[in-house]
């Protein structure tokens, strides 16, 4: 009787947990800790000099500002795309819905050369801006374009399921109580999708800050003007300046952890609301 009651305990905890922890430690935790320890060997002055060099500071400004603009564009248009995909029927909808994932699936280097070809002065799109003196490729606008592209799926894919699950009755109640359509959208629908929207925004921003492949082709990499922070890390690593690269890397790691905490907090908020 006793053995029968004990028997259906699921086996494999030691094996799966042991393997997972070993795998995570060797591949992730120890290497990341290694980077931090490596920069701790530097003197504070050296570290500060590496991370506060004017060229590096210019790159932080560009990386964070362009990521911010890109994520903001995605917040607006991503919500619009999610709305259109959930609420309306139009030809080619299924294909469009699938294509939203393209920035996840297409290698970033391919996206990079495609975007620069498209938005260069002679490109399909760039040629219409060139006569007005607007240069997209090899300028900060190009960086924003690439970072908007790379963050595009995040807002759509976080807002879309929330909109799809949204109860129509609430809208009907709001309309029955005399609210016009705009008021209903602003006061009933928007608050419901806000947590998901902010989560998607933060995810798009985090991805954009660290992005390399899709940006470096279109940015032209002019010092102080169109150099993103990841590019400087690559440049320093290629010159074997590992301390300089690691110092900037730790700054980016810190930013990544803060964003990760923020995203976890937002997801917790979103799940509590839902």
């Amino acid at each position, binding site marked *: 009787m006793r053995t029968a009651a004990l028997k*259906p305990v*699921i*086996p*494999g*905890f030691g094996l799966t947990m042991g*393997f*997972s922890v070993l795998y*995570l430690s060797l*591949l*992730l*935790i120890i*290497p*990341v800790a*290694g*980077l931090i320890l490596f920069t701790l060997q530097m003197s504070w002055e050296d570290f500060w000099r590496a991370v506060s060099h004017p060229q590096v500071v210019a790159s932080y400004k560009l990386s964070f500002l362009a990521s911010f603009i890109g994520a903001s564009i995605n917040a607006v*248009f991503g919500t619009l795309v999610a709305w*259109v995909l*959930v609420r*309306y*029927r139009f030809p080619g909808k299924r294909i*469009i*819905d699938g*294509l*939203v*994932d393209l*920035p*996840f*699936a*297409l*290698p*970033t*280097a*391919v996206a990079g*050369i495609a975007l620069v*070809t498209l938005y260069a002065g002679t490109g399909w799109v760039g040629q219409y801006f060139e006569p007005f003196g607007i240069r997209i490729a090899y300028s900060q606008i190009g960086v924003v*374009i690439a970072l908007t*592209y790379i963050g*595009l799926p995040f807002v759509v*894919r976080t807002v879309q*399921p929330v909109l*799809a*699950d949204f109860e129509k009755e609430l809208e*009907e109640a709001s309309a029955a109580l005399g609210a016009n359509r705009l008021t209903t959208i602003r006061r009933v629908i928007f608050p419901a999708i806000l947590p998901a929207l902010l989560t998607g925004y933060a995810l798009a921003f*985090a991805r954009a*800050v*660290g*992005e*390399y*492949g899709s940006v470096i082709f279109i940015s032209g990499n002019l010092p102080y003007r169109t150099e993103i922070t*990841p590019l400087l*890390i*690559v440049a320093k*690593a290629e010159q074997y300046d*590992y301390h300089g690269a*690691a110092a900037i*890397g730790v700054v*980016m790691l810190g930013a*990544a*952890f803060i964003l*990760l905490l923020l995203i976890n907090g937002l997801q917790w908020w979103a799940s509590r609301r839902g």
Partner: protein
Amino acid sequence: MTTTNTLPLTSAAAVQDTPKATAEPRWVKWTLVGTALTFLTLFLILPLMVVLYGAFEAGMQVWWQAVTEPDALAAIRLTLFVLLIVVPLNAVFGVAIAWAIAKFEFRGKTILISIIDMPFAISPVVVGLIFVILLGSQGWFGPWLAEHDLRIIFAVPGIVIVILFGTLPFVARELIPLMQQQGKEEEEASLTLGASGWKTFWYVTLPNIKWGLIYGVVLCNARAMGEFGAVAIVSGRIRGETNTMPLHIEVLYNEYMFTAAFAVSSLLTGLALVTIVVKSWIEWKDERKKTSSTAR
């Protein structure tokens, strides 16, 4: 990273017979659809067209030459070789950690789940740098590795390691919520009936998580074939030896061999489109299962 897209079928049906009060006028609808499509055309459809146009503009023969010249073939071979190691390893890891998290209670579970997400937040460039610092010739383990005649950085093992790091979360992220939701009753029933642990896994768990696993593998595969920033740092770009397909594309582009760059890109673009089709198909299947089970 939740991409589950529940029940657009019901909402699409609802749109048709909704009273006017909860729908927009036609002109608003079509303005919104038009704006959304313009945005997606500029950012998704045109880049896709540019790649295909650039690849085939000069004709099939030029395309064929570009993808079969020795350096391109070497890059294709290397990319496939890396995929063959990375995808199974991360799939096994994903199943193992999902099993531990979904079937057992232990402290620190939330922290463990957040740790799995780390590669999504860390810049690929930083990932590459980490391993150069640890394993490069001037790195911490460099002298020891040199003594034992092991070359990791600027060689294939380094490429495998950074791609393993970058694609680590994909399978785990799909399987953890799925297996948590499924609970452990079925496994317990199987074990009570006398099946061994492995047998239970093969005949009970695996069929249940099959589609989630395939979904994760497809995403992991897509990311692994395209990993660029991390590989750019650790590969050393030795032509025909340590150039993966994305690096080969970069080299060709920087040498102004645009047609060849787009030709190799078109192969990766094809794989990306296959990824999207498989992903959409699995999601569609999932949706149908959900709607039919709620109808019952």
